[in-house]
């Protein structure tokens, strides 16, 4: 699904004043596009995702889905966070079907669907395990399966692999890209890791320091699978790094004055 966010504003009360977190943010994602969003910490990336997921109402702004203006932000997108948020009392299989269960799909049918997907994500044989029996990487894969099973046309991913070691993370990247290509979804992927953004995304959006807006957009035309040692990759990484450092510097000056 194609989606646009237009002139999004959000501030939070801070003492007597208000802290502006997002100010006039525009962003457009094409059908089936994978966009990575990077920016200095505290720039409002998570706030943006919370708004899009329908958890926090924006102060102002318009959401368009496939050219249609949408009044409510709730229920259009699947949201996955850095914390796996598995329910510790549910075994893997029942964690995976949580979303389907809430939609009212019969348990047996949901379980059949989940079993197939868990197998494809290397979790066969763990269906009856409890989350605290699994490694961090496996738990995050369960969370990914839970997200995929929702079959939403748009996924919001907030540093989903931020707490995972580098080796496991590259495996998870493969799983994610595979699922994205099969389901033809549109992905907005927040990360603070430039390399991760460049490995995964069609485009990288760079946010300004708070109050957040989109500062620059980069098309990443490199063919997948991408290699971090590719000279083009390295050049892009340096360019992005510079841009981000500039943003951090401006933030410091802004805060100092």
């Amino acid at each position, binding site marked *: 699904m194609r989606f646009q966010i237009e002139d999004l504003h959000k501030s939070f009360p801070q003492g007597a004043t208000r802290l502006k977190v997002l100010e006039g943010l525009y962003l457009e994602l094409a059908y089936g596009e994978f966009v990575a969003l990077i920016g200095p910490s505290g720039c409002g990336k998570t706030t943006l995702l919370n708004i899009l997921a329908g*958890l926090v109402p924006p102060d102002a702004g318009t959401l368009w889905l496939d050219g249609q203006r949408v009044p409510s932000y709730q229920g259009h997108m699947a949201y996955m966070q850095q914390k796996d948020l598995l329910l510790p009392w549910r075994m893997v299989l029942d964690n995976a079907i949580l979303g389907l269960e*809430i939609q009212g799909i019969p348990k047996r049918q949901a379980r059949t669907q989940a079993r197939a997907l868990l197998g494809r994500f290397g979790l066969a044989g763990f269906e009856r395990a409890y989350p*605290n029996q699994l490694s961090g990487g496996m738990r995050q894969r369960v969370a990914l399966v839970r997200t995929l099973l929702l079959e939403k046309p748009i996924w919001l991913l907030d540093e989903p692999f931020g707490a995972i070691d580098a080796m496991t993370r590259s495996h998870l990247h493969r799983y994610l890209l595979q699922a994205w290509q099969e389901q033809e979804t549109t992905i907005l992927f927040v990360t603070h890791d430039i390399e991760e953004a460049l490995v995964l995304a069609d485009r990288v959006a760079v946010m300004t320091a708070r109050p957040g807006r989109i500062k620059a957009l980069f098309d990443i035309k490199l063919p997948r699978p991408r290699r971090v040692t590719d000279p083009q990759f390295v050049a892009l990484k340096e360019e992005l790094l510079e841009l981000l450092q500039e943003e951090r510097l401006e933030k410091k000056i802004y805060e100092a004055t």
Partner: protein
Amino acid sequence: MKRLKQLGPPLSLLLALFAGWEAIVRLWSIPDYLLPAPTAIFRAIPDHLELLWLNTGITFTAIALGFLISLVSGLALGIVIFYSPTLERALYPLLIASRNVPLFTIAPLLVVWLGFGLLPKVAVAVIIAFFPIVVNTYDGLRSVDADLVNLLRTLLASRWQILRKLRLPAALPFIFSGVKLGLVYSVLGAVFAEMVVGGQVWTASGVATGGLGYWIRNATNFGHLDLAFALIFWLAGLSLALFGLVVSLERYLLRWQRVERT
């Protein structure tokens, strides 16, 4: 097997205490009306089996009713005050404060109001067993990770679904702490009320009823300390058996807490 092994040390200690007790009674020739020896106490149990059985039924009915009423109303009120901020502000401080009030002391008044029989016993049990269940249910519902609630909200879960699929299971460890306390208090309340209520009815076979609590008081007053102790041990056994049932249920429902990392 592991659990049986854990029982070893406390059981050995208990046996040693009984042996010491027995030795003291025999060495100093302490008369039965002051302190009966454990062997005399255990002999008293088969001697009074009919009385024990009959009164166990009576006391158990009061405990079970008191506990079940506390459980159902405690869970319900815990959920209600969780969802009603107004009620929460009014009730929660009182519930917490009531922990420091010896509520069972109103048992004699309840007898005045409710008469002799089952009712005052159940009332005393409920009055003291109800509070820990309410407070723990409320605390448990509140303890849920806000991020998990948000996850369910993004999945468009209704309030009822959030309660059933997230809040209640997450609160279960808290609820069980409250329920276990509630059970102990139900026993305490029912038996204490029996000691206060007194009264006895003669059945056709000539055995008096009134409950275990009544008979503990009665046997003590009349110097039958072997029977009094026998009743106390019997009651302790009953209480432990009930507690064991609740713990088994807890271990089953919270089995996910004990799984080991593979």
